[in-house]
C-alpha cells in the first residue's frame, strides 16, 4: 500500500512539473525567446519597410533585441576592459542593406580625444571574412580565416578638434601651413586621421596586431547618447566588395560578435568588453506580428495556442491534484 502511495505521489509531482513547464514554454514561445538556443544566441535580421538608419527610427520599435553578455578581453596583451557587462543588439534589413542597432549603458559620454588622457567611447561588430572557410578566432581572426570589423567611434563622429575650441585662450601666432601634408597621419592615408571616413571604420584583421583598413570604406553609422545610453546603428549593403569583407544575403546565417570600449575607463585597443560569436540570421520572412493583415491572424493563432497550452497545463495539474487526493 505504501509503495502504491509513493508511486501516486511521484506521479502527482511529475504532473505538476509538466504543467509548469507547459505554461512557461507557452509564454516563452509567445514572447519570441527560445531557451533551447541560450548557448548559441541568434540575432535575427527581419526585413523592414521603414528606413532604420537612425538609432531612433520607428523601424526599430518592433525589432526583437537580444542581450549579449560581454566580458573583459583576457589572456593576451593588451588585455583589460570589462566595464560594460552587456550589450543589446537588434538587426533589420532594408533594400538589401543590413542594419545593426546596438545599445548599451554607459554613465559617461566620452566623445572627445582632444587631450592625451582622453579616450573615446566606441563599439565594433566583427564578422568572419567572406574568404574564411572556418569560423575565425574571435580574437582578431587568424591567418587563414580573417575577420571584417566595423568600428564606430564617438570621437570620429564628433570630428577633428580645433585647438582654439579646446583652449579658447590659446594664442597661436600662425601656422605656416595647414595642408594635409602637415597632418602626417592623414597624409599617410591613416583612416584614424581622416575626417572624410566618418564615424565608422571598415577594417580587416588576420590575428593580433594586423588590424588594417579594408579596401573600401562603405560602412555607415550613427550613434546617439541619451539618458546614460549609447544607441548606434551600423549599415552596409549586403554584397561585400571583396573576399576580406563580410557578405550577406536574405535567408542565410553568419557569425557576429561585439566589442565595446568605455573611454573614461581608458579602454582602447585590446582593453575592451567583448562578446563571444553569436549567430546572425538574415530572415527572408517578416517578423511575425508586424505589418498587420495576415500578421493579425498569426497573432490570434499564437494567442489561442497559448491559451490552449495553458488550459491543458492547468487541466493536467488539476487532474494530478485530484488523483493525489483520492488515493
Amino acid at each position, binding site marked *: 500500500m505504501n509503495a502504491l502511495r509513493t508511486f501516486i505521489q511521484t506521479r502527482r509531482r511529475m504532473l505538476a512539473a509538466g504543467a509548469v513547464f507547459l505554461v512557461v514554454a507557452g509564454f516563452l514561445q509567445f514572447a519570441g525567446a527560445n531557451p533551447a538556443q541560450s548557448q548559441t544566441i541568434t540575432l535575427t535580421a527581419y526585413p523592414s519597410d521603414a528606413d532604420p538608419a537612425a538609432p531612433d527610427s520607428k523601424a526599430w520599435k518592433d525589432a526583437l533585441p537580444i542581450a549579449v553578455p560581454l566580458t573583459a578581453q583576457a*589572456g*593576451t*596583451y*593588451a*588585455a*583589460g576592459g570589462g566595464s560594460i557587462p552587456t550589450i543589446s543588439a537588434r538587426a533589420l534589413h532594408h533594400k538589401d542593406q543590413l542594419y545593426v542597432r546596438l545599445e548599451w549603458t554607459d554613465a559617461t559620454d566620452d566623445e572627445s*580625444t*582632444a*587631450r*592625451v*588622457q582622453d579616450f573615446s567611447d566606441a563599439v565594433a561588430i566583427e564578422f568572419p571574412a567572406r574568404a574564411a572557410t572556418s569560423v575565425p578566432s574571435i580574437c582578431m581572426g587568424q591567418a587563414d580565416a580573417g575577420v571584417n570589423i566595423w568600428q564606430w567611434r564617438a*570621437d570620429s563622429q564628433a570630428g*577633428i*578638434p*580645433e*585647438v582654439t575650441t*579646446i583652449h579658447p585662450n*590659446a594664442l*597661436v601666432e600662425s*601656422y*605656416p*601651413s*595647414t595642408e594635409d601634408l*602637415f*597632418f*602626417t*597621419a*592623414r*597624409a*599617410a*592615408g*591613416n583612416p*584614424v*586621421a581622416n575626417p572624410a571616413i566618418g564615424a565608422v571604420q571598415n577594417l580587416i584583421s588576420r590575428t*593580433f*596586431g594586423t*588590424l*588594417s583598413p579594408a579596401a573600401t570604406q562603405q560602412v555607415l553609422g550613427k550613434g546617439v547618447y541619451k539618458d546614460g545610453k549609447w544607441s548606434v546603428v551600423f549599415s552596409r549593403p549586403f554584397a561585400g566588395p571583396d573576399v576580406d569583407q563580410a557578405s550577406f544575403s536574405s535567408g542565410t546565417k553568419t557569425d557576429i560578435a561585439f566589442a565595446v570600449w568605455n573611454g573614461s575607463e581608458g579602454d*582602447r*585597443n*585590446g*582593453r575592451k568588453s567583448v562578446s563571444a560569436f553569436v549567430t546572425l540570421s538574415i530572415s527572408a520572412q517578416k517578423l511575425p506580428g508586424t505589418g498587420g493583415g495576415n500578421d493579425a491572424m498569426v497573432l490570434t493563432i499564437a494567442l489561442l495556442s497559448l491559451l490552449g497550452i495553458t488550459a491543458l497545463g492547468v487541466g493536467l495539474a488539476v487532474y494530478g491534484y485530484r488523483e493525489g487526493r483520492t488515493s
Partner: protein
Amino acid sequence: MPKVYNWQIGREMDYRFANGPAKLQFAAVFNTNRCIACQTCTMACKTTWTFSPGQELMWWNNVETKPYGGFPQHWDVNILTLQEKANPGGQTWDVSKKDPAKAPYGSFSGKTIFETADQVNNMVTGYIPPEDDWKAPNIFEDAATKHSPTGVSLPEHAGWFFYLQRICNHCTYPACLAACPRNAVYKREEDGIVLIDQNRCRGYRKCVEACPYKKSMYRPTTRTSEKCVGCYPRVEGTDPLTEGLPMETRCMTACIGKIRLQGLVKVGADGLWIEDRQNPLYYLVNVAKVALPLYPQFGTQPNVYYIPPRWVPRDYLRQMFGPGVDDAIAAYMNPSRETLAVLQLFRATQSIVFSYKVEQGPKTGELNVGGQKRELFNDTVIGYDSRGKEIVRVAVDEPVIERPSQVAMNTI
C-alpha cells in the same frame, strides 16, 4: 619572452623582441656643463617638425632645468616612483660586477621597466602624463635648490641647478616599440632611429604610456602619436647641403653652446657596441667613459650620452646617470690630451664625423686643477666623413686674433 643583453645595466634582461642583426645606431653626446639653455635646439626642432595644428604642446627637443623642471612635469620622478613601488628598496647597483665592455658601470640589481610590468595588461611600466603636464615646457627655468648668498664652490655646489637637454634616445630596446600592440613603432636597421608608422598608428597611446623619457607625444588633430624622427633625412644624407653625406640633426647643428656631437656607432647582434676606437662617440662613451646614459636603470639602453654637470651633488647624479658618474666627472675635470682634442669636434661641422685622428702639438701651458698639475698641449683633431675624407680640423688652442685699432665705422 626573449633575453637581450643590456650593457648599460651590465646584464641580460627581458625584452619583447630578440636582438636584430648588427647595425648602425644613432647616438649623441651632450655636454651638460656647457649648455646655457638658450633653447636654440628647441626652436630648431620646433620650426622643422612640429609647427602645425595639434602639435602646439609637442617639443621633441626640450631643455629643462633640473632638479625641478621637466617636460612633461615630473616625468622622471614619476617613473622612478612607479619603479620603486614595484620593487621597494631593490633598485640598486652592484658596482663590484664591472667589465670594461659588458658592464662598464657594474650590474643593475633592480628591475627594469619591462621587468616590473605584468606583460598582459602592460608590456612596460609607465603612465600617461595628462595634458596639463605638457603645458609648461620650461617650468622652473633657472630655479636653484636654494639661495647661496656666500657663493658656491666645487666639487658640489650648495645651491645648484643644471640644464638637461632631451630628445628621443632612439633606444636600443625602445619601450615605445615594445608597448605598441600594433607593431606600428619600428627601429630602422640602417641607423637605429625609432619611428612611429603614421599609417598604422591608431592613437592607443601605449607608447606615450611606456616611454620612460616621455618622448612619444599625442596629436589630437590626427588622433595618432608622433615622436622625434632623428631628422632621418639628414642622417640619411638626403639633405642637399651635404651632397649625399650623413648630416647631424637640426637640434645638434643649431647648438650655440657647442655642447652636442651626434653620429652613428656600430652595434653588434649582441647589443654591444662594436669596437671602433677612432669614432669620436665610441671614444667618449667606451674609452674615456666621460659620457653616460640617462637613467640607464630603466633598461631601454638609451643612445644619448651626457657629460654630467661637475658641480651637482653626486647622489643626485648617480640616480640620473648611474654609478659611472664619479669617473666621468673626473675624466672631464682632468681630461687626457685625446679627450680634450675630441671635445673640440663638438659643432665643428654639420657632417657626421665617422672617425678622427689627433696630431700632437707643442706644450702651451700648465694648470693646477684641484691640486693636480695639468699640462696643456695645442693638439689638433681631424674629423673624417663616412668616405674617410677629411671634413674638419680644429686645434685645442683657439687662435687669438687682435683687431687693428683702426677699424671701419659701424662695425663691432
